[in-house]
């Protein structure tokens, strides 16, 4: 993966967010991090154009599903690959994510290494 691939990580837990950003950077991704759903939407409106998004389902401001629906409704981001990170074993959350247009999902607790591999496949 080259540094041309820009990943937006939207996660409110700073430990998880920083770990994901670190793992993505050492895998040669360019990374932007945001900790709030509303901030994420603001960044998108302001012209941020990620090539892929890792999106936590539970976020302050606007939850991950709302962010995803807005992304999908945005002409420029309608096809951007999105991986949702949802709560453990909650089938409804997973289904809701897919219905909102997620391309893939992982449930917490999750493996960051696996997430990076999944992202790589989506960005191919």
């Amino acid at each position, binding site marked *: 993966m080259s540094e041309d691939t820009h990943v937006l990580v939207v996660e409110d837990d700073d430990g998880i967010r920083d770990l994901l950003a670190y793992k993505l950077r050492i895998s040669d991704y360019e990374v932007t991090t945001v900790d709030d759903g509303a901030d994420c939407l603001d960044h998108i409106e302001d012209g941020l154009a990620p090539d892929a998004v890792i999106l936590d389902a539970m976020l302050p401001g606007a939850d991950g599903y709302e962010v995803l629906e807005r992304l999908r409704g945005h002409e420029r981001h309608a096809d951007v690959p999105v991986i949702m990170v949802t709560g453990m074993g909650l089938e409804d959350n997973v289904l809701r994510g897919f219905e909102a247009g997620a391309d893939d999902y992982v449930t917490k*607790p999750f493996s960051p290494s696996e997430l990076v591999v999944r992202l790589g496949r989506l960005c191919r």
Partner: protein
Amino acid sequence: MSVSAPLLEATRAVLAALVGIGLVTYGLAVQRARRDELRADARRRVRGELFDRLGREEPGWGAWTERLSHRERRELRELLDGLLRNLHGRERARLVDLGLTLGIGERARADLGAERIHVRLRALAWLALLEEPVEEERLFETCAGDPRTRAAAARLLYVCDHPRAGEFGTSLLVWEGSRPLSVFGLDTLYVLNRAGSTPLLYRGSTAAGDWDPALLVQVCTVLRDCPSTDAPTEAFDWLRALLAHESPTVRKAAIGAFAGRGWRPALRERIDAEALVADSDPGVREAAYGLLAAWGDGPATALLERAARGEENDRCRLVAVRALYENGVDAGDGRTWAWVRAEGATG
């Protein structure tokens, strides 16, 4: 106009006090800002190094943690807590090693004996995060006295995959039956019995007589959802006795616990379904029709047909007719049948 000396003195005193308070507030704010800054620096340093080492085959936790300051170790513990809750796989295994290298497991074991309950709960949470098993005797002697520590100890047995997690964990949870379980306790009872509820059935045989009705309802709910393929029919005797409990809520919950067990003829034969559908409480009768619908055999269908004709309560009759319709019986008339057929037609 002259100002009196006492008034002047008082004004000076008030001004001095205000200046004093202002200086102290300012001092505290500066101190706090400095502390936050040092903390943020420590967090940044620790985080960068942690993530870097986490990706290595040999993270070298021992050599690294020996060099950490007290503040850095505290930040690292806090970070570790959040990461262990959210991660699994290779990274988690390495973080568990880090936690043990930091001495968190050892400290938590010692803290199990602490007097303050929040210290014991924190210790149990760390032991569960690090998946560090604790001997049954030690858990019992330190955790049996409070429902919160009992639930946390039972959860620890589960996450550590203790060979007697089902039996011992269940015993701990329902040790004192005078009050219902917390949401966490109930969830733990469920996960401990998910693969087989025989431990809970046996525990009920000896202790259900002392259990509070709210706890009985919770236990019945767990038994409703959890299988028990190896328990003999006699193990259900106490649960069968609950079908005649004075509380309709308990009777209803007990019926629910039998609904999924209709495949055991010996058990079915011991339950007086006639008595259940004759219960004075409509909620209990509704549950009984649900049980008969799940069983679906000849006698059950006959009772449902009788209810479809003669059940006085509209809601109960609807449940009975709906059960018949869903089991392929469509032989009645009247408004309940019309309703159910309309429901079936619209999906």
